[in-house]
């Protein structure tokens, strides 16, 4: 498989980068991260009106642009770089992904255009208090009632779950266990019996919520009892997309740390002229470039329908987890005392690196997943 970016893709990237540099400076991130929602409708609308980013990977049949993961991951990489505060990942990767992987034609027709246009902000509620990212750990139950179902139980660590208009919920039929009896459902964010609470997050730019379902009316998404496979697929896609978002942040940290080292003087010379700094920067470049390659390759593997994609996705996420965190640690260190202050921006990415490290499972978790695919 050949993978690299076409001239069109590179131009798309640079336009996007310019847009985000103007519209989403860290000043803006600092403002939004102090709000409970973490984002604002107006900014979100602008984002989609002007660049149609929510539509990127949604097929044209459902009002999208029908691009692949290659383009979608460029968007995510640039957003990770800019530390954009928006419900983009939850809406386009998780919710839209679940709908694309599990939904019926009619449901896609009904749900995706709203997402493509940016009118619908959506979330995927799958993980619960146990913090396990596998479908088998689901305890929230869906009981048939009349035409639909009623959901009872809880979800947690739901990305943008407290602000989403539409929530895709992973639930199981009463009395089932493991990967059997799992189904997806859709619930409006303001459904009766649904209580949503924003969680206090270490990374204030990545909002999470805990949802309580008390006999909440829900519509089945896709085939009843058949959600295990599409959920796994959605998690694979999420790992790849997050890996790309992460390498965007890691590269930004690396570049900022380098720029700081170039201008910071100590002992009468720029600290960039000290060999230990040069070697550290070289090591950072190596790590970030490796993680970028893995993330890019994984996106290409999704587009190519590579049979190995699950393993490759886990490889990319494991690589990005270690690299982003390590790069963030170096970046704070290179900035010295300044880097530990609130007013310096480094900690914003440091915290994003930390939340990304464990979101959808940490490096060890994904290394083990990878081995299950390759060592078998």
């Amino acid at each position, binding site marked *: 498989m050949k993978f690299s970016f076409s001239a069109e893709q590179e131009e798309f990237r640079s336009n996007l980068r310019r847009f985000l540099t103007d519209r989403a400076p860290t000043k803006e991130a600092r403002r939004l991260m102090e709000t409970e929602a973490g984002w604002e409708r107006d900014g979100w609308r602008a984002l989609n009106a002007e660049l149609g980013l929510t539509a990127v990977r949604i097929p044209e049949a459902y009002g999208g642009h029908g691009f692949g993961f290659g383009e979608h991951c460029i968007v995510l990489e640039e957003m990770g770089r800019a530390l954009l505060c928006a419900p983009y990942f939850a809406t386009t990767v998780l919710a839209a992904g679940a709908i694309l992987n599990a939904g019926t034609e009619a449901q896609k027709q009904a749900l995706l255009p709203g997402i493509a246009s940016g009118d619908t902000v959506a979330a995927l509620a799958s*993980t619960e208090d146990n*913090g396990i*990212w596998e479908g088998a750990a689901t305890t929230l139950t869906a009981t048939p009632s009349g035409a639909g179902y009623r959901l009872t139980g809880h979800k*947690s*660590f739901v990305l943008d779950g407290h602000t989403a208009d539409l929530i895709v919920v992973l639930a199981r039929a009463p009395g089932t266990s493991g990967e059997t009896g799992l189904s997806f459902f859709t619930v409006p964010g303001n459904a009766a019996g649904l209580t949503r609470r924003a*969680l*206090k*997050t*270490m*990374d204030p730019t*990545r909002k*999470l919520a805990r949802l309580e379902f008390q006999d909440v009316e829900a519509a089945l998404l896709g085939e009843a009892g058949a959600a295990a496979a599409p959920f796994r697929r959605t998690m694979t896609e999420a790992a790849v997309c997050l890996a790309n978002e992460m390498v965007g942040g890691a590269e930004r940290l690396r570049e900022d740390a380098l720029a700081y080292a170039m*201008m*910071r*003087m*100590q*002992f*009468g*010379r*720029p600290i960039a002229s*000290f060999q*230990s*700094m040069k070697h550290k920067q070289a090591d950072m470049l190596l790590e970030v470039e490796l993680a970028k390659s893995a993330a890019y390759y994984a996106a290409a593997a999704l587009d190519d329908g590579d049979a190995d994609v699950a393993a490759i996705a886990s490889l990319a996420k494991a690589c990005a987890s270690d690299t982003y965190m390590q790069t963030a*640690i170096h970046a*704070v*260190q290179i900035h*010295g*005392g*300044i*880097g*530990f*202050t*609130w*007013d*310096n921006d*480094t*900690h914003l990415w*440091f*915290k994003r690196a*930390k*939340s990304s*490290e*464990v*979101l959808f499972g*940490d490096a*060890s978790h994904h290394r083990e997943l990878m081995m299950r695919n390759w060592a078998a």
Partner: protein
Amino acid sequence: MSENTEASVRAEVRAWLEANWNPELGLVEWRNKLVDSGWGVPHWPRAWYGRELSAGLIPVVDEEFQRIGAIGVAKAGIRTLAAATILAHGTDLQKEKFLRRSLTGEDTWCQLFSEPGSGSDVAGAVTRAELRGNQWVVNGQKVWTTSAHHADWGLLLARTDWDKAKHKGLSYFIIDMHQPGVTVQPLRQMNGHASFNQVFLTDALVQPEFLVANVGDGWAVTTTTLMHERRGADSLRSWAMGSDRPGRAYDEERAEIATTMEPYKWYPQRAGRVDLILPRARETGAIDDPVMRQEIAKLLVLSKSAEWTARRARTAQEQGRPQGPEGSLGKLVSSHIARAAARLHTQMAGANAMLTGEDSPMGGVIAEILVSVPATSIAGGTDEIQRNIIAERVLKMPREPSADTTKPFRDVPRNGVA
């Protein structure tokens, strides 16, 4: 004095304490007695509240204080460094004015060395002190100043001659923190705490008699302060623990400690809380995961061998043998330990590592570890500086060619004026 023996000293101090120690005295009242007696700082000269006791006999005195539970002179905060520095370099007037009130704890101090442009490079200070009329006028900015907001006096390093080389153009002052020219602002950190201050000096005034040593001797005096700071770093824990006994003196000491320790309340988290690793491993079940067991074991190997290395160094010192290299390594290894602990706490917390405050494990303690640990490898000399020190001072490896110590400081490329 040399005719002192362990027995004679022990008898003498014990007798004095039994006659004078009274937990119901006011803290300052008691410490004034102590200062007069010479038992507060027995290793100090007789001329200045001491007994010129040899270092070897100090532990005896400490033991007797602990035995009876008597409170010592004020040790918390920068005041100890101030007292030691003034004792070494100060004029009689300065000793007269500051030593006793530092020992009694009536005066509190802060250290005005670091600047935004000179973090690792303290001698690169660009805060300017000029003699106008018969007063020193100070302009500049200092950072990383602990407790500046309730300090009475500051130990100030400032540049008085820009034509001299970097280390030669500095002078050392005692500055009154209660004056209009001194503005103190809290400095917020990535973990949300504000343990340090920024101090803005705008035409701040220093009386000529508060110059310590001579103009241009600033660096020599500063190294004295820093040397005592390094020594003191280890004992920080010891004086941070107040007694829980009843009594007015104890109450007042507890209050004093509370104020001084306030900025340090996240320091245990900064060090990585290795003590929580096994409990958390049991709580989260990580203890049964062979992969986590290896990571935990690696950390325990590191922290135990570091602990034993420190003990080797202490034992050598106690036996009066020259301290080996093991003495200089503690700071560097503490960074490794803190980072490894933070990594483990993250892995054990899993998805919960994304949370903070009440929503997160141990009501935020774990979260605070993760956002505090990065300070360990920076504060008090970065890991890089520590490695330079170990290589040059312990291993005697050649220094790098200097880019800034020979020419006039005004010609040295520096931040802002590169």
